[in-house]
C-alpha cells in the first residue's frame, strides 16, 4: 500500500490486496465459527441436559473461558504447532489453517457457554413434555437445539464478533505474512506501526462496516425464517 492512499481510495479503486485481506479475514473467522459451532452446540446442549458431580465447576470454567486472552491462546497454539512443538510435523505454523485453529479455540467456549444457558432455560419448559413423550437423549438435544435456533444465532454472532475483531492470536500464529496470513486486524496493527494512522483508521472503519453487514444479514435471515416458521 503506497504513500498517500487512504482506505476509501483503496475501496474505490477495487484494490486487489485489500480484497484479498478482507477475503482471508472473513474466511478464517467464518471457518473458525463454523468449526466451533459444530463442536460447541452439541457440547453446550449436552452440558445443559446432564447432571454429574463437578458439573458446576465445568460450567464455571466454560463461562470463564469466554474471556480467554487471545494472546495466551495464540501462544499456546504457537508452541503446539511450532516445529519444535508436539505438532510441528504438520508444518502448520504461519498458515491460515493455524489461524483457524486458534480462533476456533477462542470462539468455542463462547458458543458452548451461551448454548448451555439457552438450552437449559428451554429445558425447564420442555422437560415434562419430552419425558412424557419418551424422547431419548439424542432426540432431546436435537429438539432443544432446533427450537432455540433463533436465540443460538446470537451465540454464533457473539463468537464471530470475537473472532473477527481479535488481533492477538492471528498475529502470533499467522505471522502477518503479506498476501498469505495478513488479515484486517493485523494490517491495521502494521499500518499503525508504520505511523500511517489515517490508513489504519480507514481499514478499521471498513472492518466495522463488514461486521455490521454480517450481523445485519444474520438478523435478516433470522427474521425471515422466524416469519416462515410462524
Amino acid at each position: 500500500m503506497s504513500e498517500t492512499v487512504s482506505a476509501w481510495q483503496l475501496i474505490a479503486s477495487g484494490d486487489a490486496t485489500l480484497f484479498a485481506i478482507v477475503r482471508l479475514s472473513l474466511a478464517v473467522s467464518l471457518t473458525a465459527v463454523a468449526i466451533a459451532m459444530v463442536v460447541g452446540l452439541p457440547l453446550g446442549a449436552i452440558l445443559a441436559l446432564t447432571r454429574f458431580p463437578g458439573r458446576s465447576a465445568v460450567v464455571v470454567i466454560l463461562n470463564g473461558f469466554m474471556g480467554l486472552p487471545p494472546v495466551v491462546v495464540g501462544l499456546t497454539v504457537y508452541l503446539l504447532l511450532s516445529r519444535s512443538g508436539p505438532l510441528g510435523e504438520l508444518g502448520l505454523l504461519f498458515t491460515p489453517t493455524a489461524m483457524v485453529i486458534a480462533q476456533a479455540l477462542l470462539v468455542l467456549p463462547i458458543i458452548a457457554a451461551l448454548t448451555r444457558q439457552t438450552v437449559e432455560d428451554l429445558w425447564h419448559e420442555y422437560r415434562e413434555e419430552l419425558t412424557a413423550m419418551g424422547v431419548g437423549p439424542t432426540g432431546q438435544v436435537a429438539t432443544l437445539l432446533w427450537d432455540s435456533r433463533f436465540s443460538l444465532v446470537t451465540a454464533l454472532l457473539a463468537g464471530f464478533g470475537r473472532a473477527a475483531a481479535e488481533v492477538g492470536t492471528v498475529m502470533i500464529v499467522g505471522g502477518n505474512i503479506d498476501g498469505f496470513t495478513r488479515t484486517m486486524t493485523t494490517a491495521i496493527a502494521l499500518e499503525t506501526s508504520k505511523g500511517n494512522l489515517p490508513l489504519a483508521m480507514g481499514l478499521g472503519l471498513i472492518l466495522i462496516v463488514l461486521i455490521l453487514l454480517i450481523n445485519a444479514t444474520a438478523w435478516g435471515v433470522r427474521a425471515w425464517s422466524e416469519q416462515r416458521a410462524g
Partner: protein
Amino acid sequence: MPTRRTFSSLVMLLMLCGGTPALAQDQAIVVASTTSTQDSGLFDHILPVFEAKTGIDVKVVAQGTGQALDTGRRGDADVVFVHAKAQEEKFVEEGFATERFDVMYNDFVLVGPKSDPAGISGTKDIAAALIEIRTREAPFVSRGDKSGTHSAEIRLWKEAGLDIGTAKGQWYREIGQGMGAALNTASAMNAYVLSDRATWLSFRNRGDLGIVVEGDKRLFNQYGIMLVNPEKHPNVKAEAGQLFIEWLISPEGQASIGEYKIGGQQLFFPNAEQERS
C-alpha cells in the same frame, strides 16, 4: 442443527483456507526478519524481483531481532535476516546456522522533540548526548524487546559509561514493542528514541519529532542473513533458502537493495562481500 447446505458451505470455507497454500508450499520459504526491513517497505521493493526470477515465494514474518532468531532456533523459519551481529554470531556458534553473511547496512539516528529539552541537537557525539539525556532526565523511549535496535541502544549506554539497569528512572520508558510503536509513543509524549534510519524515513506520524543526533561511527547498523541449519531442523528448505541468500548478496540483489529510496533518500547500503571464501 447444521443442514446439508451449511455443511457444504463449511467444506467450501475449509477449502478456501487450506487449499490454496498447499499448492504453493514447495516453492515457498519463510524468512524471519525485523520490523525495520518490513516497515520501511524494503521487502515490497526487492521480493517481487526475486520471486519473478526464481518462482520462489518468500513469506516474511517481521519480528524483533531477538524473536526472529528464536523463530529460527525453533525451526519455524528457513532463513533469518536480522541486525544484531553479536546475537547472530551466537546463533552460528550454537549450531543453528553454519554461516552468516553481511548483506547491507544503514545507521541509527537519535530522534527527539524539536524543543530539545536535553539541548543536544546537532552534536555528533552519541555518548555525550545520552549522558545529557540521563543528567537532565529528559523522557526517553526504549524498545525494551531484545530487538537489534534495543541491543544497539544498550551497547550505546554502555559506551557512554552508564549502566542503564541502575541509571534508569521515570524518564526511561521501556515499551517492549516494535520500532513503529516506539516512534508513535515518542511522538505522543515528545520523548527521545533511538531508531534505525530506514524506519524513521518511512514513518509518517512524526508529530514534533526530528533527528537530533546522527553521523557518529558508533551508530553503524549492520544487517546479516543466515540459513537455518538443516541438520538441526530437517524441515528447513535449504535449497530455496540458500538461493534467496545467494541472490541477496549477488550483484543483482545488492543493486536492488541500493535502488530502494524514499523521497530520494537511500535507506539501505548494500555491503556484501563479493568474493566469498
